[in-house]
């Protein structure tokens, strides 16, 4: 699964640590999601979408969709 998390984070000028604190997860987890090594659970994906005020499918999508 692909995602645009690092772009959104850069736009908001948030560090991985800042975002991790907002989402109540570790910085390593944010890093793993950005590098597409880990797919977040639905609750975490919804939390991320809420932080960036976007729909989940705008942030996370399958490779064929783009």
């Amino acid at each position, binding site marked *: 699964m692909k995602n645009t998390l690092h772009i959104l984070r850069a736009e908001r000028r948030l560090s991985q640590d800042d975002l991790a604190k907002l989402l109540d*997860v*570790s910085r*390593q*987890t944010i890093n*793993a999601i950005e590098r597409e*090594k*880990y797919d*977040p659970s639905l609750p*975490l994906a919804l939390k991320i979408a809420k932080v960036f005020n976007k729909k989940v499918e705008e942030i996370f999508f399958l490779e064929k969709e783009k």
Partner: protein
Amino acid sequence: MNLTKQLKKELIVGLLLLLVPFFYTLFPSNEMSTDAKTTIAGILSNLAVLVFGFGRIYGVNFKMKLDEREKTIVNKASGSGVFFLILIMFFIYGLRNVIVFHNHISINEYWGFFLVPVFLISHSLSGLILSSFE
């Protein structure tokens, strides 16, 4: 404190506890009488395993606040940790009369002391390897 730091701590404690059986055999029990040194060494060895070994296992698996990715890693590490524990303990138990300590004492009655350190080492190494890949 993050998971990697905890797992590194667990590995260090495991390696230190691996020395316990060697410490224990510095004061082998006399077959005729149990002297004070043996009793003290036995109490210290058991205390070290209980306090540090079980403390670490409890700390990583139950006390630490983990997020969803870290929980997955700990679950996988526990599974592979137990797999390697059984495998290594099987060999240690099988070779208990063959492996000899420094002063001609075979592992024999001390093989149980390897249980906690071997678990700590296999669990922490599995966790560290898994967290570097995931």
